[in-house]
């Protein structure tokens, strides 16, 4: 892989973590409201998979999608402003945290009803396949979303018509407070794909390079016309389900064990954020991002001082996004009506 790309991935991961922690702060201050679902712990999934996608591909995501949006190319300003409900937000302040959209980036939302991403994704895939285009659709969902009927219905249709859809499960083992063994009769999500003859693999979602490679291969298969694929990424969220969830249902030891595998924990940044120290992580043995970092070091991609520089860059970007959001104007009611009727054009209704 290109050195620039590796660096870009590292940068995106650092940005993602910083952005989300900062959003949490702003939530506490009351600048952000509603449900706020944060991504810390899961960065390797969005970063690895979206770096493997082409600009002509389409992205469909959930309510936990700030990082997907930014890795896809949305500016942190547009995302933060949307979280603030400002007119300069990517959805003009109408959508908020759970409904990020960007037509130019083919980022088609931002869905907050669990299980909606499947039909949207196969619909886009259908439009693509009908026209014979070389595009693919990346469809994100959580482990809890797998039990929604639309999973079943949509995967069946995806295979039946060989639609170019990559199903990406962010298996963080929890459906809010319900652990996967308590919500799924089969806890290995990838095994469910057998009911539709969809090729599927389980990947270590804490290993950004493994995520990247698996996604690249799956997309290659899809572009070769072989129909849908499914990837399950095992990961973990370090925070509560949303800002209103203290996460008391998770054993403390479980949280700590996963934090040791944190893709970012090996970074100096981790300390500042209060995550385990380098010593603790080293002592914990197998650490997927430690491996990524050693790799980066060995290849001379990122030296220690460069890492520091990256962190500073990322900090500044996030601070800038907060300033931008704070200073941006609020939308007015006319913006709301315009949003609702934007597609009406010159159509005369009555």
């Amino acid at each position, binding site marked *: 892989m290109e050195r620039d790309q590796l660096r870009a991935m590292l940068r995106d991961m650092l940005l993602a973590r910083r952005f989300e922690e900062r959003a949490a702060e702003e939530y506490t201050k009351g600048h952000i409201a509603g449900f706020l679902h944060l991504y810390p712990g899961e960065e390797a999934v969005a970063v690895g998979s979206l770096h493997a996608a082409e600009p002509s591909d389409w992205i469909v995501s959930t309510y936990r999608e700030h990082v997907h949006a930014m890795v896809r190319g949305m500016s942190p300003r547009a995302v933060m402003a949307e979280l603030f409900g400002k007119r300069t937000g990517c*959805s003009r302040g109408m959508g908020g945290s759970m409904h990020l959209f960007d037509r130019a980036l083919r980022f088609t939302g931002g869905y907050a009803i669990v299980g909606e991403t499947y039909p949207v994704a196969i619909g886009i895939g259908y439009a693509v396949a009908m026209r014979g285009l070389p595009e693919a659709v990346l469809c994100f969902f959580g482990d809890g979303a797998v039990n929604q009927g639309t999973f079943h219905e949509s995967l069946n249709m995806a295979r039946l018509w060989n639609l170019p859809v990559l199903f990406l499960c962010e298996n963080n083992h929890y459906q809010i407070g319900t652990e996967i063994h308590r919500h799924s009769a089969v806890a290995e999500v990838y095994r469910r794909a057998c009911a539709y003859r969809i090729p599927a693999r389980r990947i270590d979602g804490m290993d950004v390079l493994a995520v990247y490679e698996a996604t690249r291969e799956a997309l290659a298969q899809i572009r070769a016309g072989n129909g849908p694929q499914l990837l399950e990424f095992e990961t973990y969220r370090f925070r509560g389900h949303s800002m209103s969830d203290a996460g008391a249902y998770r054993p403390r030891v479980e949280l700590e064990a996963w934090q040791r595998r944190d893709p970012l924990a090996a970074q100096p940044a981790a300390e500042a954020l209060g995550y385990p120290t380098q010593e603790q992580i080293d002592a914990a043995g197998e650490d997927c991002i430690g491996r990524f970092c050693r790799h980066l070091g060995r290849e001379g991609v990122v030296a220690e001082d460069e890492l520091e520089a990256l962190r500073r860059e990322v900090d500044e970007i996030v601070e800038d996004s907060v300033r931008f959001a704070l200073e941006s104007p609020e939308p007015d009611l006319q913006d709301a009506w315009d949003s609702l009727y934007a597609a009406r054009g010159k159509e005369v209704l009555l």
Partner: protein
Amino acid sequence: MTERVKLWQALNRALDAEMAADDAVFVLGEDVGLYGGSYRVTEGLYARYGEWRVRDTPISEGSFTGLGVGAALAGARPVVEIMTVNFALLALDAIINMAAKIPFMSGGQFPMPLVVRTPGGVARQLAAQHSQRLEHTLMNVPGLRIVTPATPQDAWWQLRQAIRSDEPIVMLEHELLYFDEGPLDEGLPPPPMHRALVRREGEDLTLLTYLKGVGQSLEAAERLAAEGISVEVIDLRSLRPIDWERCMASLEKTHRLLVVEEDCGFAGAGAELVARLSERAFYLLDAPPRRVAGLDIPTPYNGRLEAATIPQVDDIVQAARELCQA
């Protein structure tokens, strides 16, 4: 040139015309392809346009309606057929929470050129689960538009207009109207999609109705004319938006309001009609407004009981008579 065609044929021609004109248009639903559609609406299209543009689906209403939403996001113009509106209960998340909200939630970035066609109403002894009417549920959804063609000419006009619109539109069709015949002139310029049309002019009473109620009301009006009661029958053609100006203009003349609807009366489509017009035409009305509507009971299978639970021409005649005496 005016021909006489059945309503299903008018829909069929509208689909054909739009599919020929724009290859972004495609049709999907259960048995719309090889089988030709349960009410023949898609007959012949599979042979003509192939499986990608006329897609037979599994029984997965929630997801294939959602598929329509996704396809619309990517620039296609899907026409989803939900075999009957009874199954639309399984697709309401796609219609209400996705199709109707995405354009808004995206700050206006994404148009939603989606049409959902679905037959409904009380047909012939299909029993409670297959006699659903969902007018009211869909009417309360901002962002959605609802059209209700009661004639072949409207079916032709409104389906073409719906396909060309960039907003999500539900077309409610009535199962008992598909095989009704009426005039169709393909070349006639269409009125706006949501405009109400006066089907019969009258002086004494404004009768608002839609779909199957139109034919029944015209029949009732004919009988009432013989008694000297002159009824103005307005076919709403659209339940969202509603052509209030047309309704008000008529009330200014007649000062009496009767609504004929097939759905269950309590909180049915007629509720909004009576409510809004009571608010707006309060000083115009000479008598209490009235609804002739379905009884508030699930539809019995037994034929006579079924008939007893939905408006009949006699009921309309009687209500109109009483209203004019009030």
